[in-house]
């Protein structure tokens, strides 16, 4: 008799647990789909104040393209600006600092009021073994989480290298959890003529970028949800 009652109770509680888990999963899925749907549409409210902006810099040509874009963005709208570059990339932050310094001297404000510069650990260095990469990716992700909690940007601008993936994934999770709504803009490099980069492909397939811009028309034909904007360089 007791055994029978025991069995009944444990099967009921395991059904209850499974059902709760299923409900939670379904709710999360609905929320994710809703976030993806809203991300694809322009923001409904007219912008009334500046938006905090995270700019993710990559090496070499990526930085040059990003600086070209920043040159034509109205600085009073995209404010304050946070620059993140990979820990091993020395040139990119320097170039961004030069841009901000010249802006600050023009308008006589302190750079520190409108711009901050940070480095992030790389998930994987070129040529690094895949086994150690698992560990370094974990560290990079934790570091990215720490930075994103501090910054919580409203706008993210990125254009290529793997540095942007952990940050964009975390931004997406923040959206789902209601921590912060970031509009993520990804500009594929001009060097990508026929195929998207790995970062671009990931953001496209996972519907994680609000807008994905491409610089060559054949890319837009291949990836219809991308927006063709012509050459930046």
């Amino acid at each position, binding site marked *: 008799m007791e055994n029978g009652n025991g069995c009944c109770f444990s099967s009921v509680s395991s059904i209850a647990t499974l059902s709760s888990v299923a409900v939670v999963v379904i709710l999360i899925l609905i929320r994710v789909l809703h976030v993806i749907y809203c991300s694809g549409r*322009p*923001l*409904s*409210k*007219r*912008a009334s104040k500046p*938006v905090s902006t995270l700019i993710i810099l990559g090496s*070499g*040509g990526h930085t*040059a393209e990003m600086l*070209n*874009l920043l*040159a*034509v*963005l*109205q600085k009073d*709208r995209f404010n304050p600006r946070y620059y993140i570059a990979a820990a091993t990339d020395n040139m990119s932050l320097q170039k961004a600092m030069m841009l901000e310094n010249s802006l600050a001297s023009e308008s006589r404000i302190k750079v520190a009021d409108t711009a901050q510069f940070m480095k992030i650990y790389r998930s994987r260095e*070129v040529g690094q073994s895949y086994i150690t990469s698992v560990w370094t990716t974990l560290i990079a992700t934790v570091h990215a989480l720490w930075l994103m909690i501090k910054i919580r940007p409203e*706008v993210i*601008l990125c254009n290529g290298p793997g540095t942007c993936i952990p940050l964009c994934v975390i931004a997406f999770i923040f959206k789902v959890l209601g921590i912060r709504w970031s*509009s993520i*803009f990804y*500009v594929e490099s*001009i*060097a*990508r*003529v*026929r*195929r998207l*980069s790995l970062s671009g492909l990931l953001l496209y397939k996972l519907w994680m970028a*609000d*807008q994905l*811009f491409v*610089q*060559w028309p054949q890319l837009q034909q291949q990836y219809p949800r991308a*927006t063709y*904007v*012509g*050459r*930046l*360089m």
Partner: protein
Amino acid sequence: MGGEKTKRVIFVTVGTTCFDALVKAVDSETLQKELLAKGYTHLLIQMGRGSYLPTKSEGDCNLVVDYFTFSSSIADHIKSASLIISHAGSIFETLKLGKPLIVVVNEDLMDNHQSELGEKLANRKHLYCASPQTLHQTIVDMDLNALVPYSPGDATPVAKHINRFLGFPDD
């Protein structure tokens, strides 16, 4: 008689990369003879992180060859050269300065995405595109007068899209 030849420099650059295959390719006597025949007088090689050291050379009957590893800005070297032979990373810097360019693709780089850009721009006749193996033939066949000037791109369409998306008013 005995007047000075006009100095015509070919500047070879690999940026911060290691591109020994290109440095080796321009270190060839036959290639340098070809350049001399085309009226060039100097060959300056910026070899970056490479380990292969080219041979320096001087003298009236040869191309004057020199090399260095890095420079804080290669723009000055590009400006004073008559022809640039470069890795894919310096494409836009060179095109913006309006100099004739042969882009040499580094086949040792994993994921050779830079070749797509070189090929595309070569199709549009803004530059010549070659591999270290085909560089000599490209130099033999090249006609720099056939190159079409490159008009720089414009980032304002992207800025407009971003502004509109965020609800900022159009300027």
